[in-house]
């Protein structure tokens, strides 16, 4: 008896799904009849908009990482208008299941796919090998193919500038840093920030807590609160949401944002934020595809390109600090100096980059040590 119910129930589910599919057969046939009536009025296939897909790890509502990529997507739509049509897939987990999301958008007709998290690297490479005529763009990774490129920004530049602000404003000389994963990107950011802090305040320390997640509002908040409990009076972060900023504000403490201009969302206690402007890159890259000039590349643009920047400073930041930031920014923009130019010492006081030398891109991209002034460890070193 019981068994029969189970089987019956299952059968019903199948039947109704099939029925639903059949019912829809009619509207489906309407689609092609529409298409030809429109097509002849315009020039034939060339006018089809180029489908551009975006794979997001979170949702634009995070007001951080994904919000910024989505702002870039909107800029792409604005600038290129009818020439492009965008597809978005949100909340795609890193790892093997990303393969499906990437393949899905290609099967929906996407000709360019932007995957916006490190963990999409291997899955994207797999799909890229299956579809040689689709252009794949992976943010923050290091693997490329003839039809797969990487893109990223020298976020360490505005991070250094934000460090100048934090170093000038801390009274406790204790700055907390909520960090995602111990990978070179994040380590580089912590180091650049700390170099900025120590440039103006050699007594200040930057305390790092790892959350081992990009996007987890609860964990990010908890990590920030732990740092505040220990005495931090400024919270910096490398996460995808505004939670650490909010946690600091609720305790009457200051913070440095990241990804987007978090001062807009949280308030003036966010002194400034190193921010992304992906739109610059998205427009240029898609334009290249439209022109047929796209070739594989490893793009790593800095402040001079506009792909990264420092958000406007909060009115709480005094004018002399502002001037200092402007000066240093000018040095970076003109290319006369960069953040990882010596002398730079590591946590143990060992000289890593001698005076007069600067780190190569390769060394920066594989950075796995902390500079002097960072309190914390990199796991499994």
């Amino acid at each position, binding site marked *: 008896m*019981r068994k029969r119910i189970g089987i*019956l129930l299952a059968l019903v589910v*199948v039947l109704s*799904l099939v029925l639903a599919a059949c019912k829809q057969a009619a509207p489906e046939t309407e689609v092609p009849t529409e298409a030809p009536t429109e097509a002849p009025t315009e020039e034939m296939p060339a006018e089809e908009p180029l489908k551009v897909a975006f794979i997001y790890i979170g949702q634009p509502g995070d007001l951080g990482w994904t919000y910024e990529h989505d702002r870039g997507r909107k800029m792409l739509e604005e600038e290129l208008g009818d020439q492009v049509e965008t597809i*978005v897939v949100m909340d795609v987990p890193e790892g093997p299941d990303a393969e499906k999301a990437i393949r899905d958008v290609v099967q929906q007709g996407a000709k360019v796919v932007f995957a916006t998290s490190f963990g999409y690297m291997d899955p994207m490479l797999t799909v890229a090998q299956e579809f040689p005529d689709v252009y794949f763009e992976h943010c923050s990774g290091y693997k490329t193919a003839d039809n797969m490129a990487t893109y990223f920004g020298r976020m360490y530049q505005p991070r250094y500038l934000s460090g100048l602000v934090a170093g000038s404003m801390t009274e406790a000389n204790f700055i907390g840093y909520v960090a995602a994963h111990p990978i*070179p990107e994040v380590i580089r950011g912590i180091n650049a920030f700390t170099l900025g802090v120590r440039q103006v305040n050699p007594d200040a320390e930057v305390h790092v807590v790892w959350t081992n997640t990009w996007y987890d509002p609860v964990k990010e908040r908890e990590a920030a609160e732990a740092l505040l409990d220990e005495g931090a009076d400024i919270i910096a972060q490398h996460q995808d949401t505004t939670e650490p900023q909010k946690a600091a504000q609720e305790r009457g403490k200051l913070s440095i944002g990241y990804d987007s201009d978090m001062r807009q969302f949280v308030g003036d206690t966010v002194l400034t934020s190193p921010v992304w402007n992906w739109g610059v890159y998205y427009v240029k890259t898609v334009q290249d595809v439209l022109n047929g000039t796209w070739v594989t590349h490893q793009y790593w643009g800095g402040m001079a390109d506009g792909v990264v920047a420092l958000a406007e400073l909060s009115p709480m930041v005094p004018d002399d600090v502002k001037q200092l930031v402007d000066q240093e920014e000018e040095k970076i923009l003109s290319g006369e100096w960069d953040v990882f130019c010596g002398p730079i010492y590591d946590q143990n006081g060992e000289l890593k980059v001698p005076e007069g030398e600067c780190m190569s891109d390769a060394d920066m991209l594989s950075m796995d040590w902390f500079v002097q002034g960072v309190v914390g460890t990199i796991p499994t070193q």
Partner: protein
Amino acid sequence: MTIVFEKRLTRSRRAMFLVPVLSLVLALVFGAMILLVFRVNPLEAYRVMVQGSLGSGYALSETLVKAIPLMLTGLGVAIAFRMLFWNIGAEGQLAMGGIAAAYIALFWADRLPGPLVLPTMFVAGVLAGAVWGLIPAFLRAALGVNEILTTLMMNYIAILLVEYLYLGPWRDPQGYGFPGTAQFPQVAWLPRLTGRVHVGLIFALVAAVLVWFVLNRTRWGYEIQVIGENPRAARYSGINIGFNILLVMLLSGGLSGLAGMAEVAGISRRLYQGLTVGYGYTAIIVAWLANLNPWGILLVAFLMGALLVGGDQLQVALGLPAAVALVLQGAILFFVLGGSIFVNYRVRIIRGHKEAKEA
């Protein structure tokens, strides 16, 4: 006026047929209202879901990919539920199976002869899941500790252990610090049948036959049934309940462990975040929707896979927020599971003074 649920003395055939149909229709109507809020044609949305999960060879293969772990864990929990042993721990047993298989693949693959690697991973995965299931079974059999709590709590231990391993000691040294172990050597990859569908599908089919045979054709299966339906009678007739709990959990945990082994060896080919995504919990729903019937579990797991895969399509094809797919999935489960109460109970509305007499 009061509303009472009255147990039906005999199950009504009409209810048995009508209730699931009505539940599904209601779920689809409810979903349609949500879709209308988003200004999406509900029929179009449902078409996209069916098309995206069953409408092509590739879609079907992705549905099967999701169905495999649900089938194995579903079978695993069903056999425990048959004797009313509430194994909520399939998720943890799956995780332990994944860990054990990964351990063999990462540290023994080069020391074992090639053809033995996968069989060793198979055995290790099953054993690890079984042992993880055995702990709460032993606590229940020997000390009477409530298994709902122990199996549930042990999930968290196993899930955190997976996290600890891929974030800590087993992290890929060449992975730039990114969480996850190194990729397994090729000898440790479970062969794929088509698309991402791997041999785990065959494991699941064989497991279903095995579970059906054990439950319906063996003395042991009969004992399990008796314990489930009437423990007192079972005790009087001399069935050793404690021993049966241990045996059942060996099998139940072993099947979930196998699901974990198949996931790491067939899909991710490394230990990774994303191994424990809730298959072990969904398995409970699968098992009950299928009325604990092994064939039913295969079918329901497949449909559940379709629901998961079809939901993703709403985002890609119609640009709906990710959460809408989850709401739709939840609505369908809620109505179908909720509806099943009307098969066994009837609703009576009692008015005013009659209440006293009727009640």
